[in-house]
């Protein structure tokens, strides 16, 4: 069952509960999305899925092929289109609205986002290597140190962790607790942090490996 929606990360805050404990939460603006296309297992596509559109786009910013795609579905142009696999018996049709209400009785969600880009990062930031001494003539600093042995093997192992491009990758934050679902304002509160910057696009879906509770 595809209990998934598109949204944006708004930011983080904290919330007090009655017993005085304070929990960190991420505020997500999720949906509403519209079904733009439905794919059926017994149709030409051979698998079942829905294509969701999110955020209204100005018609002048939509390419002509996509304009035709939206016209066929009879929905207003959207900025983001994303396809989600569904169960065979999924009843949603083209033009249906999907809101944050689908998470009403969901306890845990996975949130997929694009992490903040760090550019070319060293081993300390990228892999959490320890840093060396800073003073007394130490030349270690943030250098990675030795990257291998000597005559044998005479090369560096494949996959050796070194500096390189870090971040701006698809990251899934799994099993985040749903704190609040606000259908009126299309708002979802989840416990803990979510990958990406504020305003970044996220996919929220029912947790795939839900905890037993």
């Amino acid at each position, binding site marked *: 069952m595809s209990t998934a929606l598109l949204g944006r990360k*708004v*930011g983080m*805050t*904290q*919330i*007090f*509960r*009655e*017993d*005085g404990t*304070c929990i960190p*939460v991420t*505020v997500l*603006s999720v949906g509403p999305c519209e079904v733009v296309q439905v794919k059926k297992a017994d149709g030409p596509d051979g698998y079942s899925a829905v294509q969701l559109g999110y955020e209204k786009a100005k018609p002048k910013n939509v390419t002509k092929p996509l304009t035709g795609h939206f016209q066929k579905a009879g929905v207003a142009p959207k900025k983001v289109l994303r396809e989600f696999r569904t169960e065979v018996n999924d009843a949603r049709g083209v033009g249906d609205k999907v809101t944050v209400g689908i998470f009403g009785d969901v306890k845990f969600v996975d949130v997929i986002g694009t992490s903040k880009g760090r550019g070319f990062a060293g081993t300390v930031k990228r892999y959490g290597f320890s840093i060396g001494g800073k003073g007394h003539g130490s030349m270690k600093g943030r250098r990675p140190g030795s990257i291998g042995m000597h005559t044998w093997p005479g090369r560096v192992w494949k996959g050796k962790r070194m500096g390189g491009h870090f971040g701006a990758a698809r990251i899934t934050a799994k099993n985040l607790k749903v704190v*609040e679902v*606000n259908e009126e*304002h299309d*708002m979802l*509160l989840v416990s803990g942090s979510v990958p990406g910057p504020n305003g970044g696009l996220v996919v929220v879906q029912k947790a795939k490996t839900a905890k037993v509770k």
Partner: protein
Amino acid sequence: MRNRLIELAEKSSHPVSKHHFEIGDTVQVFVRIVEGDKSREQRFEGTVIRIRGAGTSATFTVRRVVGGAGIERVFPLHSPNVASVKVKGHGKIRRAKLYFLRERVGKRTKLKERIVRKVAAEGSKPRSRSRSKSKTKSSEASE
């Protein structure tokens, strides 16, 4: 400016104007402490030297001097564990943060008292979050 949705999310967590006090006030803070299944209230009395932050993360700092040693406690402004704050008196102040009190010893740790005539009006005045600092300043200027 804070985001509309973030404020909405915090709304359920902090009833606005739960406590009424200002910088320089002498207050009694009652903190709920849960031990096992019993809960009791602990009192801490002192001068409010700082109110900082916005939204649910706002805190205030209360300073008192016990036996020559200064003690400061930071309380979350909107925590349900801060059961109540009782204002015992108002201090005459000219700034938003009273860090200068930390350098003072003995009698000089006390602020001059500011007498507020309309006590009833004071209680009903909504304290618009931590922005009361500017309010305090303007009332000082008019005196």
